[in-house]
């Protein structure tokens, strides 16, 4: 079993949920941008795969694939479902490169038991330049969050689960 939880960022905003809702809202407009409509297909696809997967303790390489763009079969969309960041090994990145949109989300994991893993998402954004400052900031913040969580995982998991109930 595996679950995805959302955590507030230090700015006290649930950045991941806000971004996901923005993608949905932009796709539901009267004349939506086709790039956002395509992203609204790919993001939940990646999130479903991510939710159902237990990330191995030793991840030797990124879990990734390329597929045809739903808008144009001759174009490719690249998924990096799980990419362990180089600078912080507790931090994982979920990427979708669907030009002109480049989706990024950051998370850490908590293994409650061998068969029960939580992926805790902290930050997400649409990237518009190579290595934007927000990227390093998101990695550092996620690492810090993971560190704080690990101090008392049982209590912190309980709090997070409560926050994630609707």
């Amino acid at each position, binding site marked *: 079993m595996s679950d995805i939880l959302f955590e507030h960022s230090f700015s006290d905003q649930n950045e991941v949920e806000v971004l996901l809702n923005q993608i949905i809202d932009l796709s539901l407009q009267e004349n939506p941008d086709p790039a956002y409509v395509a992203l609204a297909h790919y993001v939940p696809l990646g999130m479903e*795969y991510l939710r159902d997967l237990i990330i191995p303790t030793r991840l030797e390489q990124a879990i990734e694939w390329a597929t045809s763009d739903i808008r144009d079969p001759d174009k490719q969309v690249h998924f990096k479902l799980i990419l362990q960041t180089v600078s912080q090994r507790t931090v994982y990145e979920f990427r979708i490169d669907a030009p002109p949109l480049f989706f990024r989300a950051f998370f850490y994991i908590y293994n409650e038991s061998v068969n029960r893993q939580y992926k805790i998402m902290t930050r997400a954004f649409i990237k518009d330049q190579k290595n934007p400052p927000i990227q390093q900031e998101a990695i550092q913040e996620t690492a810090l969050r993971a560190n704080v969580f690990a101090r008392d995982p049982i209590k912190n998991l309980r709090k997070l689960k409560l926050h994630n109930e609707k």
Partner: protein
Amino acid sequence: MSRFDDIMNRFKTVPGVREYLESFEIQIGKQIFTRRIQLGWSQQQLVERCRQRGYPITQPMLSNIESGKKNIESNTYHIVLEVLGGAESIQIKFGPVPDEKKMTAALTE
């Protein structure tokens, strides 16, 4: 309901998303992908195991299968499933019967 489920349900209100996520190709591709990761195999390792059994599968083909690309031959699914240990059961949960208009649209898509 969790916030995650809530977001996923909202995504499914975008035209075409529900059909995309619930398509046969995506559902089976996800299971193949999850099984491969569970076994700790890379795509290349699975491709090599298929080839050792005489099945000429390529890494791009496997990538297409796992990502739910359409127009994959049923025999290709069969081969990959066999190498992954064989599918002991494939369960289909049926939804409500669509009306004729929607059915025609889905079949001609």
